[in-house]
């Protein structure tokens, strides 16, 4: 049944995931001149164009400049075939292993090559396997180490000199990992297990109308919900945020079809609530307060992302939310006004869930949004601070408007499973954050 697989190809304007061994990075392939930086290596991306996602490329040194912290190398990328990729261990063909490390004294003089030698070697050899082979040849202790210790050494060296990168298409799974590893605070510390449970408990799927409030997750939460809503379905998402401009990086990186993108309606929390309650009323002074407040919040969230400027595409960039009374905004509806109207219409019809990830105290926000949710629908409130959720729990419990209330958190334990060396990983992430879940009542 299967023939040539239908794999999408890399296009200009795409966000791409660059993977080098276990390291992954989200990068915009904005132009043919674009480069990506992995540590000291700079990669020219132009040869990626039109190649299928999932391809592996070899980093070929083009030039090497002395930088502040050793050489900065510029690389071109060359497409490689799958079978060029071999295990580094097979290449080196190591066989003799010591029994244990009783005779090893670690005096730092085990490597005969000097760092200058290694730097030169690196420019001469394009293959990490060659470099590592030389290092092993010149190591005085390598062959007396245990196999375990040899493996560890090789892995360490391989990591440093590994010359291949794979280009992958961004997915929620890959981005959740990248964001959490690079700077968990930018996504409010939402860990993969917690993200997965937000999606489950919220019931978001291809049918229904969903409501999200989040105060900044690089677009990860709206992207994950829209991903679950799916292409070519009827479901919609109203995405409320406290700032002037929604964080959308993850959404843009998913490269969803336009019809699906348009089913995510991003609106400012204050502005849309005003629209909902007061419709077309004249702007007055309290909006000024609100706008000031919105700006303030946005400043907070702006500090969370250095890539924030990339996060909003020029094509989707909204005009700054500026509702000060001296502005004449009678000259045709602005985009945010249209979105507010669309959202407001859905708010009047009520939603099939409520998802919140607030940096603010959730209680007031949930009180404002709960009336917009139909009965018998899930609510999921995320917070990094259990003390806040405890208070919200008590408030909701007392209100009688929500039942089956639970506050949960998770341990996520990853395992090293290797022959004779199986154990849980020695480090684990300490914070999953907390979820408050329940079901609305009529």
């Amino acid at each position, binding site marked *: 049944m299967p023939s040539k697989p239908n794999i999408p190809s890399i296009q200009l304007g795409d966000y791409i995931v660059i993977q080098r061994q276990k390291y992954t990075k989200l990068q915009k392939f904005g132009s043919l001149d674009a480069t990506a930086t992995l540590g000291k290596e700079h990669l020219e991306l132009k040869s990626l164009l039109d190649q299928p996602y999932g391809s592996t490329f070899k980093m070929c040194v083009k030039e090497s400049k002395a930088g502040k912290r050793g050489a900065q190398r510029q690389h071109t990328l060359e497409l490689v075939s799958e079978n060029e990729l071999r295990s580094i261990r097979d290449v080196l063909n190591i066989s003799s292993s010591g029994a244990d490390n009783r005779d090893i004294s670690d005096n730092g003089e085990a490597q005969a090559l000097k760092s200058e030698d290694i730097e030169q070697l690196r420019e001469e050899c394009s293959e990490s396997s060659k470099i590592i082979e030389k290092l092993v040849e010149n190591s005085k202790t390598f062959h007396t180490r245990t196999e375990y210790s040899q493996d560890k050494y090789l892995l360490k060296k391989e990591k440093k000199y590994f010359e291949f990168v794979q280009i992958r298409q961004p997915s929620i799974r890959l981005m959740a990992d990248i964001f959490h590893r690079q700077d968990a605070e930018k996504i409010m510390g939402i860990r993969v297990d917690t993200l997965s*449970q937000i999606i*489950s408990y919220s019931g978001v799927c291809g*049918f229904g109308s969903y409501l999200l409030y989040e105060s900044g997750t690089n677009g990860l939460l709206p992207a994950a919900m829209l991903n679950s*809503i799916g292409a070519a379905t009827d479901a919609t998402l109203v995405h409320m945020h406290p700032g002037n401009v929604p964080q959308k990086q993850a959404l843009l990186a998913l490269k969803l079809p336009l019809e699906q993108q348009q089913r995510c309606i991003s609106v400012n929390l204050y502005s849309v609530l005003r629209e909902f309650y007061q419709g077309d009323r004249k702007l007055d002074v309290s909006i000024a307060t609100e706008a000031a407040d919105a700006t303030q919040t946005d400043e907070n969230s702006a500090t969370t992302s250095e890539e924030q400027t990339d996060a909003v595409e020029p094509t989707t960039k909204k005009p700054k939310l500026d509702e000060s009374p001296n502005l004449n905004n009678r000259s045709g509806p602005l985009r945010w006004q249209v979105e507010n109207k669309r959202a407001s219409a859905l708010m009047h019809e009520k939603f099939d869930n409520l998802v919140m990830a607030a940096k603010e105290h959730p209680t007031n926000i949930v009180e404002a949004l709960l009336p917009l949710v139909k*009965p018998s629908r899930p609510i999921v409130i995320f917070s990094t601070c259990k003390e806040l959720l405890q208070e919200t729990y008590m408030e909701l419990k007392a209100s009688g408007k929500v039942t*089956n209330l639970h506050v949960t958190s998770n*341990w996520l*334990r990853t395992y090293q499973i290797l022959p004779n060396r199986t154990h849980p990983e020695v480090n684990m992430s300490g914070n999953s954050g907390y979820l408050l879940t329940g079901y609305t009542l009529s």
Partner: protein
Amino acid sequence: MSFLKPKTHIEQGDVVILYLSVNSMHAIEAVPTIVNKKGETIVHIFQTPYGSLKVENIIGVEYGSRVELSKGYAHVLQPNPELWTQTLPHRTQIIYTPDISMILHQLEVRPGAVVIESGTGSGSLSHYFLRALKPTGHLHTFDFHEARADQAREEFRRHGLGDFVTVYHRDVCNLGFTNELDGVADAVFLDLPAPDLAVPHAFKALKLSGGRFCSFSPCIEQSQRCIEVLTKLGFNEICSMEVLQQESVIKTRTLPVIDLEFLKAPKEVETNTNEDAKTKEPKELKKYLTSSNPQVLPGHTGFLTFATLPPNIPKA
């Protein structure tokens, strides 16, 4: 039909969650009459610790409403995979929401996905797969136990999900996932005593453009053997993990605060008036909003092993 999409009112034939308390929920079918063991059609009365419910009365009621029982009340909720997992008839050990959520996330299941599952078991996970992949994807689910496969098939149909799922009675370890499914799956999930035997079949069933794999197993040796085969077949991103959810028990606790300062200075006998004695009371009670773990937590459910089949791996 109450599993297909969000709905507002209970229709005849819906499965309805009768919610009594956090620890007491029941899935009931909204039909006015049932057939008893003797083959007689009788009025459908559901018994609870808070009295009985005449099920006919809930038809037409809005989901989320309070319904009266003869000795109390309950709420009626629309079922979804979470509530179903807590109320379904157990035909096997089942997997719960924390593990399931991770499985769906790691397998990247979304509308349009084609997923293969073995075994079907009690259908707990299947309901989640179906919610995530409908209306444009498809689930192929296998069980080697014929009665279980039949029950699951019938259940999916009653729940309005029949169009999105095919249930197979088949021993996949020995016979694979049928040739028709070669190269069609975006994701394969295994919950089998010997997952390693089914990995080569999973390999065949995944798309040539690649896909994701998961095996759930209680014992570490199962994961070890599974990973051995996965590695041999060229899977990468192999990763094993456990997800353990803890509930926080939130309550207001009243705790004694004692005063010991008064012991330092001898009280003068002359201050001994009744009113004074009260102000000297060395113990007061304070209220604290506290959170603690329940006495017993889930310590282990299973090891989740995930892997990626990269694109273009030749399948011989």
